[in-house]
């Protein structure tokens, strides 16, 4: 998967987790820029991304990610490695469920 293609799904995940339909992701976005992005939310983001894209992050990889751009690049690299056939849904919930839950929300504010 190309990095640009990662953003729409990533945006859906962030919007649902932060309950903010107007959230726009840019590569430079960091935890300091988003209200409520604390270490617990960080764990949830990573787990949701793992489920959505069917990838697993290593401890070192997580430590090396500092903004949205690095996260998107990591997802792109990992899904590339997996091959497009296997991408999506490795950890539990069904693809339709993830699809339904993480599809983008309209602006709420």
């Amino acid at each position, binding site marked *: 998967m190309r990095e640009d293609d990662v953003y729409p799904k990533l945006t859906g995940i962030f919007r649902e*987790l932060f309950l903010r339909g107007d959230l726009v992701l840019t590569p430079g976005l960091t935890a300091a820029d988003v209200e409520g992005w604390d270490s617990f939310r960080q*764990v*949830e983001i990573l*787990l*949701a991304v793992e489920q959505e894209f069917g990838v697993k992050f*290593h*401890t070192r990889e997580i430590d090396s990610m500092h903004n949205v751009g690095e996260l998107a690049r990591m997802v792109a690299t990992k899904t590339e490695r997996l091959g497009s056939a296997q991408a999506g849904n490795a950890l*539990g919930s069904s693809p339709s469920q993830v699809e*339904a*839950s993480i599809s983008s929300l309209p602006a709420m504010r």
Partner: protein
Amino acid sequence: MNGLYWLPQAEDWNARLLALPGRRPETAWNEGVALANTRLNFVQTNSLDGMLRRALGRAAPGGTRGRPVRLAVLGSCTVAHLLPAIRVAGLRRGIPIEIYEADFGQYWQELANPDAALHAFAPSAILLALDAHHLTAGLDAGMTGEEADAVLDEVRGRIAEAWRLAAAAFHCPVIQQTPLCVHPAMMGNSEHRLPGSKAAFIGRLNAALRPMADRAGVDILALDERAARDGIGAWHDPGLWHRAKQEVSPVAAPMYGDLLVRIIAARQGLCAKCLVLDLDNTLWGGVVGDDGVGGLVLGQGSALGEAFAAFQGFARDLSRRGVILAVCSKNDEANAIEPFEKHPDMVLRRDEIAVFAANWSDKPSNLRAIASELNIGPESLVFVDDNPFERNLVRQQMPMVAVPEVGDDPSCFAQTLADGGYFESVAVTDDDLARTAQYQGNRKREALKASAVDLASYLQSLEMRLVWRRFDRIGLPRIVQLINKTNQFNLTTRRYTEESVAEVMHDSSAFGLQLRLIDRLGDNGVIAIVIGKLQVSGDLLIDSWLMSCRVLGRQVEPATLNVVVSQAQMLGAGRLLGDYLPTPKNGMVRHHYERLGFTVVSEGASGAVRSALDIAGFAPAVTFIGAEEG
């Protein structure tokens, strides 16, 4: 598998979630209950919790099904990520839960110090969530047996003292969470021979906690058993332990919350009391009215048959421990009872079923009648049916009835019911053990009265299409199969071979129709067959009309008649003639043609009836089914 897979998928999730904050508290709560009863993952669970809190603010909703609970969570590690799932699991059962979270690892101080915030919160329930790392902190792999035993005694003593302090201060129920077996083994199979093994220690502690808890009147949140079923990897991620000190992974939070609130709900008496079972393809394979008792798949001889028998065994075991059993089946009562009396591999006996509703009225009406006959609320019913149409109808008409997504593999029915936790109980009473007998004593023999619910909106929502075509080579095997196995909805019960079906195909003065019903829930396949033959008189005789009972009550009959009339017109017929030839099995269609507007023209001594319909005066019936050739 730690997702809530027995709950149905949410429909319009995003729109309904976003609408929550704009609603009045009561409405928001009720909509939240509905959303909480769908298959939520951890992200959705957190979203629902967040949105509902926006809607309700600090206001507690009034008139909820369960009593509000003030829950104190005392943990030795991170539990904050589990709290939304606990509140949502409460929501699922109509219990508002307010949570106090003690500071990380401060549970002991909070319990012992009357000035601590815990005491101001005044909990009505306490959860003690002590993790495996915390509980094994005093253990060393090099310890002797005596030293390890001393550690076990010390830990047990500490937990018992926490229970005592909690009970003395708050006089409320205490729930003890069992630690997960998160430690890797050091010896392998013989791990139990290493006194200082942390993995073995957690097993010993969890075994010791049960009798201790029973003596102290404490309930156990059995995470260890759940994780043993799901695999520890579904519950614990060592990476997350190191990163966030989470013993339970956020992914498992929805199941965690549900397990905990099952105990709270059971203490409030909110558990289900009655298991209502469909019959055909739920308790046995096949359709008894069509296949006969001898044709059912049940018991030894096939994997499918054994799976049905095993599910019956599970239902019987539930009834032995106090769950009431009822039957709700679209069948003639005589046909439905026959396997209970005659099939040698039936596990359930007729007298183990407290209410037996086998008739042709819709299932919501029958479920209401079952609840009223048992004098319990419909929210005490759990309804198991292999047919998605029936499951959705019941959910829509009676949202308070639990309807697990059992799928159509009987091998999974029992585990799905168990995983759903519908019959969670905190104790076994003598009453429970005596209940089945008691219901047998009171049972009324009269058949349940038919009554109609408003099905129109449901049928409309199904977006049904009746896709018909003339007989063809591809459809031949299914056509012949349906003609020869359908006994109940079959007007003439004439049997056809492939050759005689082929003759109809090539007869220019006849037509054979195969009709398929497709709806929002899926393709039901070919469900009806009609064969018409033009007579010398110019009348079109309906030689055969048969239909699968699976699609009864869905307006397929009038929609089919519309197609039959248009086909008869193409052959130039002036009237339709329909015969009813009685058999022991087809009493349900005795008045089929009259219901469709036909007039009886002759009755034979054997009970045969011929009816007629004037095509010129025929106005096509208006139904919720769109018919199309395809």
